[in-house]
């Protein structure tokens, strides 16, 4: 492209930063109506940027896109959604956020003129979906947004040149304690039915005096219904070994549940304090330990003997995941970081083109 052409086109792009009309795309998965913590995080970011006046659009490649309306709600579903395979106009001023699961999209969008940034929430998705030998840098991705220092450190181990930014998730304020006394219900949140059976059945066999204890296996509920089930129950048994963050555990804590959890393979940041597992929940490593743990907790609960430290520590943990803090991170990372940097890059491009033109002259 000729220098004059560059100056002209990029100047037009720069104007979009003055009125926030440049587009911020989030490439999204369609979970077919199934709730997802990772998707909630991305939509929350998208929504907050929209509230800050940015031109946010969700991109997908589904023919029959179902979306998030049923489980996340209207305000998220009403963010404009477009199929990337239809004619979408993408320009140098725009920014495209691509979740780690879409390494194919990272490859396919290499030639797009916009700024592309990876969004990392689950390291396993990255390893599963990236071709052996391929790196983000091969796809032209050299920046990444993630949810914790733990994940930022993990990505730096394998892609040391990728610049990382941390935007903390928030726990929605629909998850909160109520004054109503709780029912003696143990909610079970697990990806696999076998996890549930391997605990519940032995519990009743080993502790027949607790045969009246109610276990409730709930998954796939809309967010508000899910919040209601958490608010009602005294305990949440959380089994998610593959998680990198553990939204459900925090949501349960926010509702005042005592969380009994299997320690994930990657221990979430909030679960540790001074190097040890934090007393914000009751943790176990082996499924065989869970049965006795639950029995002890039921006994403590019915005798009013649950240690106060559990709730206290849970409240301390939750202070780090408020929507106010998330909005601060979004402003710092996106507005004052990525968008400002992109604007500087475009200004630099114009400046270089002008210098080149002057030298020609």
């Amino acid at each position, binding site marked *: 492209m000729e220098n004059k052409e560059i100056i002209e086109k990029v100047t037009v792009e720069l104007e979009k930063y003055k009125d926030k009309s440049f587009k911020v795309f989030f490439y999204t998965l369609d979970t077919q109506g199934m709730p997802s913590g990772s998707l909630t995080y991305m939509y929350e970011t998208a929504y907050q940027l929209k509230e800050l006046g940015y031109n946010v659009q969700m991109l997908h490649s589904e023919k029959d896109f179902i979306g998030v309306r049923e489980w996340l709600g209207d305000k998220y579903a009403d963010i404009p959604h477009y199929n990337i395979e239809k004619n979408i106009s993408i320009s140098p001023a725009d920014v495209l956020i691509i979740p780690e699961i879409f390494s194919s999209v990272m490859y396919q969008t290499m030639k797009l003129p916009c700024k592309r940034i990876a969004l990392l929430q689950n390291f396993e998705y990255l390893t599963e979906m990236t071709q052996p030998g391929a790196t983000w840098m091969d796809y032209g991705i050299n920046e990444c947004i993630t949810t914790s220092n733990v994940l930022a450190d993990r990505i730096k181990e394998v892609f040391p040149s990728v610049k990382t930014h941390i935007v903390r998730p928030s726990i929605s304020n629909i998850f909160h304690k109520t004054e109503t006394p709780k029912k003696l219900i143990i909610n079970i949140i697990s990806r696999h039915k076998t996890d549930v059976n391997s605990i519940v059945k032995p519990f009743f066999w080993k502790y027949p005096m607790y045969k*009246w204890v109610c276990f409730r296996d709930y998954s796939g509920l809309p967010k508000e219904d899910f919040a209601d089930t958490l608010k009602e129950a005294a305990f949440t048994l959380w089994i998610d070994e593959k998680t990198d963050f553990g939204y459900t555990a925090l949501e349960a804590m926010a509702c005042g549940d005592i969380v009994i959890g299997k320690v994930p393979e990657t221990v979430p940041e909030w679960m540790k304090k001074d190097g040890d597992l934090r007393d914000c929940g009751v943790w176990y490593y082996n499924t065989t330990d869970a049965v006795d743990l639950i029995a002890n907790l039921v006994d403590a609960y019915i005798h009013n003997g649950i240690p106060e430290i559990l709730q206290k520590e849970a409240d301390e943990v939750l202070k780090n995941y408020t929507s106010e803090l998330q909005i601060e991170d979004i402003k710092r990372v996106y507005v004052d970081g990525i968008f400002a940097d992109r604007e500087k890059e475009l200004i630099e491009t114009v400046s270089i083109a002008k210098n080149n033109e002057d030298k020609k002259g």
Partner: protein
Amino acid sequence: MKENITFIVPLNEFNEAVEKYLERAITSIKENCNTKKDTVIMVGPTDVLKKAQVVYQNSKCKCPWYLLENNDGGTDPYTQINLAVYKTLTPYFTVIEYDDEYYSYWIDEVGKYINTESSASVYLPLTELINTDDKIVSFANEIALSSSFANEQNLGLIDIDSLESYMDFSVSGAVIKTEDFISAGGLKPSMGIAAWYEFLLRMCHNAHVVRVVPKVGYRHTVLREGSYSDVKGKELTAKHMEWLIKTAQQEYFFKEDRNKVYEGEE
């Protein structure tokens, strides 16, 4: 608990065993009562109350108390309880058998329910059934917390259907709304050991909410030789017991005690 409560202690005899158990019962009242608001009523024959009074005074329980003398026959606990409740001035009352005890947090726990919903008329505790060696034999009232007994929305609530299939609820230690007890007609002494069962049926029939709180609030001594239920249990034949249950299931429609009498085995 914000609301005031009366602790009712029915007594019909006094001996060394009663004295030992009564001390324990009063200590547990002491741990639960608010000395500025609550009351203790001990009800029974005069000579029994005189001795019980000494035990109470020695306990240094500062809860205001008084003795309700009942010498005119009707020394069954149900008549005594009715008498005491009709004298009660507090919005709630609870009955403790002299050989039982509360857990120290029980009244506060019920208070949490009353302070947030206050719709129930009867709050039953999870009860530990203990033998005379103080060993836990089993729970009582736990069935209402099971999802096989009540659907999840009604976990902890008791209704007519569930009462007709399960009769074995233990009401000692429950916190009961005084005006609802009185307006429903109180206990029917003629029902004998089925009196509390018939009362629960009648409360549910009158659309009063009966709830089991998922906290162990009470320790109930069972299998104690010489206790009222032990004596009555030995007197009753299986057919008589069956008749009592069936009669309870018919009589709950009526507020007054129609004094149905068992006519014996055929």
